[in-house]
């Protein structure tokens, strides 16, 4: 059944105090309604009001945190004004135009102030649906009322019609193949096939128990079947748990990766390792500077006396050179040797040393004393020459050492500056937090890989059980054919078993067909909505539900799309799912154009209302999104009666909605 929203009335709901009414004129060609509001003014809560009224759930809030504190559904200003023992009701009423006449859906939640002055809220909201039955309006309240709404659009499908723009842009950025597969399962109602198979399986078990065991082997075969079936049930439940855990881990890893991406973790990690390497270099350089300075200072201590006494040393050297020139420095004969000859009184030639020879030798002995001195002088002369050479080398050597020290210091300064720069850059990020996320990413990768292996094992076990069950069922069939009694029960059992066989056999075929159909529809929608029509050749959804966007050059560019292209991919997918679901409900998108470049905004606003012709399209936009070009494009599809604006009070705590003329 097709439906459109003809009016919404909101009373004391979230920031909307009092009653706000929005009436929408339904027109086939001008299918657009616009609600303009600043960020935080209450656009999302308007969408929440719709989903809360229809399903008791706010689209921006998960069921888990629904009652975990935070702002209450009932308007807080109205709550503040309550006196003791007074109560108040938050209420959303939606009027629908359907193929069979008008519907009214009302949801209320009561809260109040107790006798002790404490605020309280009713645990559950009340739902009332008024709809035409054989030309008469029927009022429905109570538990079963929700089914009426689910017949219009099941709760499981609400996210494909009441869309958060931000989530839509992120859908293909963060979705895993499991999410895609699940979305297709939900929307195609394939879930119903699984449930039907499950329930038929239970009927089969009950029937088998009832069949009288008239053949000797039948009982044992049936016992075995039951045993294996129990194992299959347990294994399926374990698989479900592991898959759930894997799904959770996959969802978390996407968030972790997104965090790391937005916090430039690879850059931080590079900077951090550069910093560590710089710290090592700095330590080495400090050591080198210290060593060189030590070397230079030791050299200075060593050479300083020579530098200071340079003049005196030169003088001494000059004197010594003169002496050598004059021959005053006699040959180097050892005094001890002459003394020995004199004491022995005999020459080395064997002649006795007497007379003139002895006298000459005694004179010579005196000269030898001078010779000893001259030896010292000769050695000294060489040393002085070395000193001279050292003094000559001094300026060059000391400059060399100083240059080396300066060079090291220069390098040190550069590295210290770089480290300071890195520290400043890293300071903006919480490095410890990034590390923690990196560790979590690695851990999750390990867990996912482990669970994938575990699942493979379990699924292989499941397969083995399936084969065994098939064999046993064949055996059971043979045994049953021998049994002439309990024909009706056996007839039933055979019917159920055969139906189950068909359902199980067709499940996979159906799923593949649906995947192919979604893929086809996704391609058509994407081609219609995308601006760069020739840049992308196709989109594929493979049998593992991996979505690939193929560039004309053959690359998969799913991770390289712009925000606008992601939005179009998301819209194309949702639209494919909407079509395949067969439900015809309004499409409401909150903040559809945020973060989208001008060109895509222009294109989306030109194409989207046209693309959804015949479907009520409601856009909740910010003034930034609603620029001049967007306005010009949307005006073609907008009736002035369907244009509203949310206005905040001075304190930005309360909002009201009123018709807007666009100026």
């Amino acid at each position: 059944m097709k439906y459109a929203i003809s009016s919404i009335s909101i009373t004391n709901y979230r920031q909307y105090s009092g009653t706000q009414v929005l009436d929408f004129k339904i027109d086939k060609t001008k299918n657009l309604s616009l609600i303009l509001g600043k960020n935080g003014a209450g656009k999302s809560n308007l969408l929440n009001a719709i989903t809360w009224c229809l399903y008791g759930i706010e689209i921006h809030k998960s069921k888990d945190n629904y009652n975990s504190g935070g702002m209450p559904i009932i308007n807080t200003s109205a709550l503040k004004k309550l006196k003791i023992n007074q109560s108040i009701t938050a209420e959303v009423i939606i009027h629908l135009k359907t193929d069979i006449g008008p519907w009214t859906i009302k949801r209320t939640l009561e809260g109040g102030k107790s006798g002790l002055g404490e605020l309280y809220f009713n645990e559950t909201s009340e739902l009332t649906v008024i709809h035409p039955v054989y030309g008469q309006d029927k009022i429905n309240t109570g538990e079963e009322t929700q089914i009426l709404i689910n017949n219009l659009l099941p709760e499981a499908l609400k996210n494909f019609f009441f869309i958060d723009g931000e989530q839509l842009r992120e859908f293909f950025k963060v979705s895993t193949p499991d999410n895609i597969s699940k979305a297709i399962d939900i929307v195609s109602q394939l879930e119903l096939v699984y449930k039907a198979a499950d329930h038929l399986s239970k009927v089969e078990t009950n029937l088998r128990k009832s069949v009288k065991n008239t053949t000797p082997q039948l009982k044992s075969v049936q016992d075995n079947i039951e045993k294996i079936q129990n194992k299959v049930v347990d294994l399926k439940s374990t698989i479900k748990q592991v898959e759930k855990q894997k799904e959770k881990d996959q969802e978390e890893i996407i968030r972790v990766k997104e965090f790391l991406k937005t916090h430039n973790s690879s850059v931080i990690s590079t900077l951090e390792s550069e910093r560590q390497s710089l710290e090592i270099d700095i330590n080495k350089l400090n050591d080198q500077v210290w060593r060189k300075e030590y070397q230079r200072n030791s050299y200075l201590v060593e050479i300083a006396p020579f530098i200071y006494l340079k003049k005196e040393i030169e003088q001494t050297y000059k004197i010594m050179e003169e002496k050598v020139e004059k021959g005053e420095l006699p040959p180097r004969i050892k005094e001890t040797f002459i003394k020995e000859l004199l004491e022995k009184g005999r020459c080395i030639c064997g002649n006795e040393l007497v007379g003139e020879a002895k006298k000459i030798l005694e004179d010579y002995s005196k000269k030898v004393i001078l010779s000893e001195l001259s030896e010292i002088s000769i050695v000294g002369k060489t040393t002085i020459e070395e000193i001279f050479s050292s003094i000559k080398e001094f300026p060059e050597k000391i400059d060399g050492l100083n240059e080396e020290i300066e060079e090291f210091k220069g390098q040190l300064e550069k590295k210290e500056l770089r480290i300071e720069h890195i520290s400043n850059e890293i300071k903006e990020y919480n490095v410890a937090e990034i590390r923690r996320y990196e560790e979590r990413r690695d851990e999750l990768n390990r867990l996912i890989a482990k669970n994938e292996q575990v699942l493979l094992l379990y699924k292989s076990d499941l397969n083995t059980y399936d084969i065994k069950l098939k064999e046993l069922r064949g055996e059971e069939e043979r045994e049953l054919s021998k049994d002439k009694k309990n024909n009706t029960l056996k007839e039933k059992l055979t019917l159920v078993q055969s139906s189950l066989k068909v359902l199980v056999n067709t499940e996979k075929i159906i799923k593949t067909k649906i995947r192919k159909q979604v893929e086809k529809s996704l391609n058509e929608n994407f081609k219609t909505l995308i601006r760069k029509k020739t840049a992308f050749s196709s989109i594929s959804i493979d049998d593992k539900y991996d979505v690939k966007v193929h560039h004309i050059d053959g690359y998969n560019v799913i991770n390289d799309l712009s925000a606008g292209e992601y939005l179009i991919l998301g819209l194309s997918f949702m639209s494919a799912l909407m079509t395949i679901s067969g439900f015809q409900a309004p499409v409401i998108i909150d903040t559809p154009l945020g973060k989208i470049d001008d060109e895509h905004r222009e294109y989306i606003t030109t194409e989207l209302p046209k693309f959804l012709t015949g479907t009520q399209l409601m856009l909740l936009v910010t003034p930034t999104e609603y620029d001049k070009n967007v306005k010009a494009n949307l005006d073609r599809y907008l009736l002035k009666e369907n244009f509203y604006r949310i206005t905040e009070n001075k304190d930005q705590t309360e909002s009201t909605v009123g018709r807007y003329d666009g100026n």
Partner: protein
Amino acid sequence: MIEGSEFNKLILETIDENCDDPDIKNLIQKSLQYELDIWNRQVRSPEIEDEYAQMVDDVLKGRK
């Protein structure tokens, strides 16, 4: 199932292609319709089992 939905056509076509027995087709169709009726409803297991037992009875009665 949803009247005229792509899914409805597709699933029934596939079952048709894979099964010649009208009783089996009938039971599957009834089961799927019932699952759709109780979709998103908290229905107790015994109630579901009774409903299925009734469906099987109805199909067999229809055969006779």
